[in-house]
């Protein structure tokens, strides 16, 4: 059976991604760091830790100066996405393969769909294999087997990571269409990543200070409003959205984000939430992350469909 255009592009790109040197190097870095991070964390977990969610604690807790596995995903994840996407189209253009590809009887969207889904598959396979290996190490180190609840939560975390990195992938693809030169596309992608990962916090703080200034006489309500404004602005950043999702999914006890008044906590039982409830807590973040990814992809799609294909 002959394959359709999208599938042909998908399989070819998937093979390319896994064979490319830059991907292998980055994969190795993430793999080694996450492995060591989770191992360190397993050593740091005290005997008094919540035995029920030992495995989740392992993923999200940091041992001393070493940050958690979740942090590494939120930090390096975007780099995987960008590396897979930044030359998707501009690279084909530079190598002279784009006009060859476009003169074949396939629809234009087959190229961009095939590339995007191959990237998503690459990301999913990467994250899944890292999580599985960490699970293996922790079972060996701690002698505990993750329970069904934990497996469910880790799976949701895996889905969230894949969506998060796919956002960066679609951003990379978008820039590879907008910019003729591969290097421009890479630089702009990295700039956006730095902006969202580092500067967003500062900018959110500055804006919140202007909008809701905190004076010495500020009431608790003003402080709360200040914090709400700040976190609302920060939620523009996919990195913040992903962080909140991972916190809620990997810590069953998290119920709310932001400032909480003592009065609001009254009557709350400090028991862990079931998975469904945890998902409900960060559902808006989930939807925003998916929306950001789809917006990027949609713009790429429209741009690419209308682009002129010049040979040189």
């Amino acid at each position, binding site marked *: 059976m*002959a394959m359709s255009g999208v599938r*042909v592009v998908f399989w070819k790109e998937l093979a*390319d991604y896994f064979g490319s040197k830059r991907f292998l190097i980055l994969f190795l870095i993430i793999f080694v760091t996450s492995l060591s991070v989770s191992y360190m964390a397993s050593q740091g977990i005290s005997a008094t830790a919540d035995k029920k969610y030992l495995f989740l604690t392992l993923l999200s807790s940091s041992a001393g100066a070493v940050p958690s596995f979740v942090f590494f995903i939120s930090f390096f994840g975007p780099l995987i996405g960008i590396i897979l996407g930044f030359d998707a189209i501009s690279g084909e253009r530079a190598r002279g393969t784009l006009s060859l590809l476009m*003169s*074949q009887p396939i629809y234009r969207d087959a190229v961009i769909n095939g590339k995007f889904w191959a990237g998503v598959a690459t990301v999913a396979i990467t994250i899944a294999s890292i999580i599985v290996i960490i699970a293996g190490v922790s079972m060996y180190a701690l002698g505990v087997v993750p329970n069904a609840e934990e497996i469910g939560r880790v799976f949701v975390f895996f889905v969230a990571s894949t969506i998060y990195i796919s956002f960066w992938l679609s951003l990379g693809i978008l820039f590879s269409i907008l910019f003729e030169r591969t290097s421009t596309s890479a630089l702009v992608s990295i700039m956006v990543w730095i902006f969202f990962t580092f500067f967003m916090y500062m900018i959110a703080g500055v804006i919140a200070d202007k909008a809701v200034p905190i004076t010495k006489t500020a009431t608790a309500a003003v402080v709360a409003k200040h914090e709400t404004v700040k976190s609302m602005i920060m939620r523009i950043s996919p990195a913040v959205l992903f962080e909140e999702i991972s916190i809620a999914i990997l810590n069953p006890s998290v119920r709310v984000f932001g400032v909480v008044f003592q009065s609001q906590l009254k009557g709350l039982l400090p028991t862990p939430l079931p998975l469904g409830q945890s998902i409900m807590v960060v559902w808006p973040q989930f939807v925003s992350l998916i929306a950001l990814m789809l917006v990027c992809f949609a713009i790429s799609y429209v741009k690419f469909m209308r682009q*002129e*294909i010049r040979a*040189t």
Partner: protein
Amino acid sequence: MEWVVEASELTKVYNNFKAVDNLSFNIRAGEIFGLLGPNGAGKTTTVLMMLGLTEPTSGYVKIYGYNSTLEPMKVKRVTGYLPENVGFYEELTAKENLLYLTRLNGISDKDALPRIERFLEEVGLKDVMNREVGTFSKGMKQRLGIAGVLVKDPKLIILDEPTTGIDPEGVEHILNLIVRMSKEEGITFMLSSHLLYQVQRICDRVGILFHGKMVAQGRIEEIGQKLFGGRTGIMKVQMDRFDPGYVSELQKIEGVAEVNTLGEVFVLRYEDDKKHEIIKTIVEKGLLPVEVRGKEYSLEEIYMRYFQEG
């Protein structure tokens, strides 16, 4: 008469610049058509419009009756296109590259593999088919491009500057292959080129493009005749006992325009279409034609004429 390509009043405007201006031409089945013109004349734009990769501002082009803008899929199914400076996936082998192309064309690997081997052999790349394309020279990539066009079994092949940047031997190889494929497989070819001498040899008809306009179209002789009038040839004639006074006798022959002597031979300038009668008469008079050279119109001359006129 079946027209493979019908272009009618094609026009493409880029930011107030007319890249292609009211272009009309037709290509017959089995023909080798040359679209010639200097760089920037609008050749590539025309080709891209033929494949539906660029939308014409006005006018249309049909390939086997399919409008390229409205039904690009059907056009691309029957048309093979070799872009100028074709690129390949450098980390894949020659065979893998072609396999990707056949898969994109919906050809099963079972059917594709024998074709791939056959055409790689045709272009002389069978020995290196398992080598990564990154190690290939420009000429090898160009030949691989031609194999890549042939494996999809097209009825029409469009080659954009197929001989640019290739050594003379490589050019010879490519041109011979085009002629053979045209004869053996009955494929219609359209070549776009600015290298006149090379393509003039193999083209049945040419269209000369200049500043986006088709300034001349037809067989090279026809175009030349229109521009320079009737053709004349040069003939050298020997006489057993050379007599310079015989010049006047030769001048009486119908169709002979001019007679000179060069050493011990007569040099005749004659009208080409009366060549046979002239030779017959000369032989009957007991003289011996030793060299007969019909003068051909070179595309270069035709080209220069348009260049000068601007």
